């Protein structure tokens, strides 16, 4: 059973990592971000699977933290990504 969980973890990690080709190709900043968001969710999924198979204690809390921080990174990225919209790229006050 544990081996099956590890295979599933490896499969999910590999697929979402293949999605990182979007980071290479772009074309836009948002496409890159989407690939990282998918990696974040898939990473959390495979983390939970690996933890369940190898019995590392307390990994649920790590996953909880990862979920929050992946969210934080995506929000900051949306904030500074280039949407090509001149109005929303703010004029900073000095």
């Amino acid at each position: 059973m544990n081996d099956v969980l590890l295979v599933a973890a490896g499969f999910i990690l590999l697929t979402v990592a293949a999605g990182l080709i979007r980071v290479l190709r772009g074309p836009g900043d948002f496409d890159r971000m989407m690939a990282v968001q998918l990696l974040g969710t898939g990473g959390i999924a495979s983390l939970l699977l690996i933890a369940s198979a190898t019995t590392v204690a307390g990994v649920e809390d790590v996953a909880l933290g990862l979920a929050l921080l992946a969210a934080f990174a995506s929000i900051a990225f949306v904030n500074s990504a280039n949407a090509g919209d001149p109005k929303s790229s703010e004029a900073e006050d000095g």
Partner: protein
Amino acid sequence: MSLALDLFTLAAIGAGAFFFFAGTVGLLRFPDSLTRLHALTKADNLGLGLVVLGLLPRSGSLLDALRLIAIWALVQLPGAATAQLIGRALSRRRAAE
């Protein structure tokens, strides 16, 4: 009983892995950013949700099970919000063109 639970775990995790696969294929093959966003949100939501569902019978206590569900819920909130933000920014850009 435990065989049935194991089968349930296998089925749910397999389905979750399938959704991650489908999401990645969509992310790589779909023609523009909005359709890619569509693929991403499905994988995000259902992929992790099914994996968590499959792991529930293996969690030691009720508290652990609740924690797993909380992880899934916590991923959904920002997932939905960033999808909205990206979609809005993309449609603004489309309108500007």
